[in-house]
């Protein structure tokens, strides 16, 4: 259960995210839990000391990363969602995201998309960096590394969902998987995600 103290600590997390990231998650809540579900998230955030009206969020403006994370944790708490639900939310988010429509120019081939992925990161976050570390279309893998980004473990789930979905946009294969092979919260210096396909 989230406490005010814990919420305060989360809100203090460094960095900002685009409002679009918050809005796409809220859209997922709306689809699964209706408008009442969205209100519940707002009410719980207010109880924790962070009242916010999602209707007032502007998709291209920047908002504290902590608020985005707190909102995800609130969703988990009130809807009893597991990491699997959060992962699904992250994979469906690009279908709704306005930013993705703007970034369509990057989704033209596996190679181009992989090379341009750091730009995609900068469109969403003002901290940390995404490194398109290694890829092989022959061996069918992408390796992404996220550096200088230590926010909250739930973001590992979110990032895995995003990277998987972005990869699906440029791969013809219907069997695409992702695995987090290094985690900054488990003593590694960065997060590493490997995307494989058949």
């Amino acid at each position, binding site marked *: 259960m989230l406490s005010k103290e814990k919420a305060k600590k989360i809100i203090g997390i460094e960095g900002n995210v685009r409002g679009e990231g918050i809005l796409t998650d809220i859209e997922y809540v709306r689809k699964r839990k209706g408008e009442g579900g969205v209100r519940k998230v707002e009410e719980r955030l207010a109880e924790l000391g962070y009242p916010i009206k999602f209707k007032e969020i502007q998709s291209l403006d920047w908002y504290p990363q902590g608020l985005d994370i707190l909102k995800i944790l609130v969703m988990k708490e009130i809807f009893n969602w597991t990491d699997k639900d959060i992962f699904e939310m992250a994979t469906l988010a690009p279908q709704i995201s306005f930013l993705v*429509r703007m970034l369509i*120019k990057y*989704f033209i081939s596996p190679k181009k998309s992989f090379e341009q992925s750091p730009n995609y990161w900068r469109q969403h976050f003002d901290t940390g960096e995404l490194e398109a570390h290694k890829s092989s279309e022959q061996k069918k893998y992408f390796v992404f590394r996220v550096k200088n980004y230590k926010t909250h473990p739930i973001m590992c789930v979110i990032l895995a969902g995003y990277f998987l979905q972005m990869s699906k946009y440029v791969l013809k294969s219907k069997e695409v998987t992702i695995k987090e092979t290094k985690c900054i919260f488990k003593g590694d210096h960065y997060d590493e995600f490997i995307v494989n396909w058949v």
Partner: protein
Amino acid sequence: MINNKKDFYLQQLKQDLRDLKKYIEEFSLFLPIPVCSVNPLGVIIDANRAFYEITGYKKGEKIKGETIFRVEHLFEDKKKWKELEKRILKKEFIKGEETVMITEDKKRIPVTLSSSRREDDQGTMIGYFLAFIDITDIKILQENLEKKVKERTKELQEKVEELEKFHKLTVGRELKMIELKKEIKKLKEELEKSKGRQ
């Protein structure tokens, strides 16, 4: 002073972006023709409300078990779609091509398809737009008209046959009458002759 100017331009740019986004969203909502934007790998990146209404699919939800929306799902004749896709990717502009769309609940909708290629600043193809016009009513009208034409043709054919029969009959009668008249004339002549002999 410089910072003030920078802030001013930044604020202005943000406002312009917001206005642009709002305009695109409003236009997309209004547009009664189903339109979608597809990347070169055949994944739908964006679509307007009319598109979701006609297809029955829902934005931000799994499509046939996948978190991405493959454009090929829309077509009854996949082979024909592959040929059309080849033409689109080869820069051909498609206009009013007749095809059949399959909706989420397996309903067949006859449509005409038009496409327009999308390119980035360097002229690289980044995808294409597809627009669908529902021609169900036109098809029904066409079918009804064809049915009526068939019925009328059949009716006419029957009338022609009747007329032919009548013609045959009347012409036959006429000939018979001529023959009879000839016979009467002959008999009259014979009668006159026999009167003269007496």
